[in-house]
């Protein structure tokens, strides 16, 4: 990666980012392999923070691995596991080591994860986290004390275009826009009309915020149905479920790659939004194949 995410967000390039999911343990080789495979094929690598409330190798540590491989990391921070002191300290450390992109998230409930007995933090929420990063960017800490050595983060947030009910989510998203973000990364979207409605809504409020559509790689009809039933804010339309159900056994992944690639191609060709964030959840090595179907990576 030769350009920073901030530079790319400021250009007209169709942005592609991919997710790196930290491992449980210290065997980081698999992550390093994914990083080296993907770092020059996408514009940034986005690292989850104890995703699904499952304890893993840290987001910050994985961002450092990306830096070591000369990649461009996006540091995801949730409000679940750290209070405002700890978040700020991690941000100072991150910036001092060249990590300049931060994605501000609430964080999945502990009840969903593997340490349900832990004490949740949520000292601040995702809107206030965006405010916190802005405050650091202004040279002050969150209590107004001056910083010795400044930071300048590129700030991202999340949104859920397929949420039902959608209005409360959109009002919260408005607050994120008001607090000030450079880019938004959406929850998985499969219905591009819904995506387009969200993009119009966002651009009506703030034209300059770049919108990356979340693309989760489907691997089977069962997975699609499971997400529809169990993950609020994700809706896989029936025609895609049918497509996955019709392929012979063992070919679900290829079909999923085709679906994801075609979605990205349409988003790019029809200029629906500014880019995509690909979540291949455990199948990161397939991201180049998705990009190839999308016509972004020349094979």
């Amino acid at each position: 990666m030769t350009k920073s995410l901030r530079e790319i967000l400021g250009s007209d390039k169709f942005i592609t980012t991919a997710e790196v999911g930290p491992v449980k343990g210290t065997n980081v080789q698999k992550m390093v392999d994914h990083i080296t495979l993907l770092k020059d094929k996408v514009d940034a690598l986005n690292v989850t923070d104890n995703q699904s409330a499952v304890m893993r190798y840290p987001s910050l540590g994985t961002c450092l691995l990306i830096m070591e491989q000369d990649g461009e990391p996006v540091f995801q921070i949730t409000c679940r596991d750290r209070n405002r002191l700890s978040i700020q300290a991690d941000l100072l450390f991150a910036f001092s080591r060249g990590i300049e992109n931060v994605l501000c998230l609430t964080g999945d409930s502990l009840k969903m994860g593997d340490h349900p007995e832990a004490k949740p933090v949520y000292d601040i929420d995702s809107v206030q986290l965006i405010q916190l990063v802005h405050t650091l960017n202004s040279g002050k800490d969150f209590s107004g004390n001056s910083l010795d050595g400044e930071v300048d983060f590129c700030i991202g947030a999340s949104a859920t275009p397929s949420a039902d009910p959608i209005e409360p989510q959109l009002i919260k998203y408005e607050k994120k826009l008001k607090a000030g973000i450079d880019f938004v990364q959406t929850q998985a979207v499969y219905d591009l009309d819904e995506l387009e409605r969200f993009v119009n809504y966002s651009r009506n409020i703030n034209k300059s915020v770049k919108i990356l559509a979340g693309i989760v790689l489907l691997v089977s009809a069962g997975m699609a149905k499971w997400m529809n039933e169990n993950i609020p804010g994700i809706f896989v339309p029936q025609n895609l479920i049918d497509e996955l159900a019709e392929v012979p056994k063992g070919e679900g992944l290829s079909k999923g790659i085709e679906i994801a690639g075609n979605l990205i191609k349409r988003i790019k060709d029809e200029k629906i939004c500014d880019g995509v964030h690909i979540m291949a959840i455990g199948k990161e090595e397939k991201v180049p194949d998705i990009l190839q179907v999308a016509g972004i990576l020349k094979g």
Partner: protein
Amino acid sequence: MIGQVKKPIEEILEYLEGKKKVVIYGCGGCATVFHTGGEPEVNEMRSILTENGKDVLAAISPPFGEFTCYAPWSKKRMSGYKEQVKDCDAIVMLCCGDGLQVVREYILENDFGLNKSIYPGTNSVGHMGGGPSLFREKCIQCGECELGKLCGICPMTQCAKGLLNGPCGGTRKDGKCEVNPDNDCAWVLIYKRLKELGELDKMREIIQPKDWSKMQRPRSLEVEPLSLE
């Protein structure tokens, strides 16, 4: 009120191992409402402990309305049982943790000058309102009530994550919470209510980070004593 449930009897018996003479003290307040320390529960505890070989010197159930956590009342009530308390090996409190500690500190230690073993018979599970049968936690006593900004619904209590600026992505289609589908998403409730009130713009205002120092424990208050006469 302080919501509470009974502790498993095995746990209470474990506390009482090696203790023969026991005093039981209930509560005419919340514990009566939650059926953890009213007269029937105090009597039930007396039977259980007797069956388990304990010598119950006194089983005190204050009348409905007499809160054990209010020291002037518990002081008055306990003054009638000073001898049994002196003589016992342990006291089992069928009330919330407030009541137990008020009795331990204000009555046993300060008033009677006794250092007695005292054990809880309940688990307190939150500051609750509602009833007569269903109670829900409504307030976390944050020290700086935000209900005025939030149309009378507290997301710090109602939202599983205590979020102050809107829902997380975990709102289900039926408006329920992903964390516990029995519960409504606090922010869907707030949204609907503000919309009905014609005050949806209030939901667009960013609520600033909470001053949690207002919850720095232990908190205390000094008030003009109430006349009990």
